[in-house]
């Protein structure tokens, strides 16, 4: 296959995802409502209860709204990643997944293209949220919006890869909804999205360790630092490693020889 063929296929997958996203206006709205509720309602209530000390990357005292913004960006990426995986399970049940899987291009490339398309849509939603958050006194440095982009795309890739991996294990739509409850909410709450890890450690050492091994924590920290033009080497390493690991696991899951698909009931 020529290089151009790969490019055409990537464009086709990206276009389809973007078109479907733009057709579902309620999807953008619901993607924004969830984090906005946290930012406006939850943050207002917890501002007084949760004092935030000066911790990197911040160089001064910050409001709780500013603190949770990277976490809420993470929530957008997390939910979009999982929602896109849900759509893959739907595609599989409806049969349209077969069109992707029977393409002559290598399956790892096709699945990676799908992940990239999901990441692009996640990033669009996250930037729209940042624009809205600006009106609620979340004003990161202007250049931060740019330095955030690679961290956000990488984090979105990681979360989409986790979703894709889960979708390769789940055969029925009904099961997927159940699995999500055990993935999305624990990932979100057991992370540094809502409270700094040191606060968690003060409250419960065991929970702190759970948060410390949650890859979502590192995605949030990577974006938090990137928004203030700083590097967090550990977060980058964990997010990169998790992205690679879950992408390979998802590819293996969709491999007709090694994957679970079709072994029990029938073809994907």
């Amino acid at each position: 296959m020529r290089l151009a063929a790969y490019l055409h296929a990537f464009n086709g997958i990206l276009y389809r995802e973007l078109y479907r996203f733009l057709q579902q206006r309620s999807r953008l709205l619901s993607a924004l409502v969830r984090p906005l509720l946290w930012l406006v309602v939850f943050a207002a209530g917890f501002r007084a209860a949760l004092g935030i000390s000066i911790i990197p990357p911040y160089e001064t005292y910050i409001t709780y709204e500013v603190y949770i913004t990277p976490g809420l960006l993470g929530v957008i990426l997390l939910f979009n990643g999982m929602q896109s995986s849900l759509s893959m399970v739907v595609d599989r049940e409806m049969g349209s997944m077969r069109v992707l899987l029977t393409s002559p291009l290598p399956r790892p490339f096709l699945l990676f293209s799908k992940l990239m398309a999901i990441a692009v849509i996640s990033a669009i939603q996250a930037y729209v949220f940042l624009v809205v958050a600006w009106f609620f006194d979340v004003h990161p440095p202007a250049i931060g919006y740019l330095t955030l982009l690679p961290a956000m795309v990488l984090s979105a890739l990681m979360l989409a890869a986790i979703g894709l991996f889960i979708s390769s294990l789940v055969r029925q739509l009904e099961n997927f909804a159940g699995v999500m409850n055990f993935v999305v909410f624990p990932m979100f709450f057991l992370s540094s999205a809502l409270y700094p890890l040191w606060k968690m450690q003060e409250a419960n050492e065991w929970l702190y360790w759970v948060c410390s091994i949650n890859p979502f924590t590192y995605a949030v920290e990577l974006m938090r630092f990137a928004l203030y033009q700083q590097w967090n080497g550990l977060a980058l390493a964990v997010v990169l490693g998790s992205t690679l690991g879950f992408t390979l696991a998802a590819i293996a899951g969709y491999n007709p020889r090694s994957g679970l698909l079709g072994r029990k009931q029938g073809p994907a």
Partner: protein
Amino acid sequence: MNALEIQQLSFQYGARQALDDISFALPEGSFCGLLGPNGAGKTTLFALLTRLLSSRQGQIRIFGQSLEDNPGQALQSMGMVFQQSTLDLDLSIEQNLSYHAALHGLSRAQSRDSIEQQLQRFSIAERRHERVRQLNQGHRRRVEFARALLHRPRLLLLDEATVGLDVETRHMINQHVRELCHDQGVTVLWSSHLVDDIHDDDPILLLQQGRLLAQGPCAPVVAQHDCASLHELMLKVSPRAACA
């Protein structure tokens, strides 16, 4: 050269044997009906041919290329209409076709020309901007056929492709497929349990409970099994008859 060659192919879903030691070959440009009752293994065979499933037991060769070693080349030369609809209901006819063309690496110009040709061939050009969700079963099938032919495959796999269609659409599709076979040398493997789709002189493969029960021209196979018609033969190999 054989368009499709299968040697000692077996497949299991867990403990259930879906295909058991299947071997056959289809010469280039031939038409072959794959017959068998529900659960005979036809759809599993198609899933293996399109690499939705993979088996460690047996060999599949498409135009001489091993499907396992060269899946890209094999899939590039293959077009498929699945039993279950695989269209994206929220996209228009044209968008569905463009998506498929992109997944086969066709450039925008190639894609445009091919889509135009297939839309005309299946008389759906004037509905190209309609969402698939708005189409009836017959038109959806036409779109699936148009899509399967977009990248000019040399081997066409049809899995119960005319089930649920009215007589006119079935006739039109049957005619198109046979034209493709005779005029353009496209090899066709047509799985069906609608015996009207198969003519007396068509070669057939008869599957029963995962095994290849018979192969050869339709009329002699029917005669070999002491049946007066293909319809009678299908009744004879049905699971209920096998149990009796």
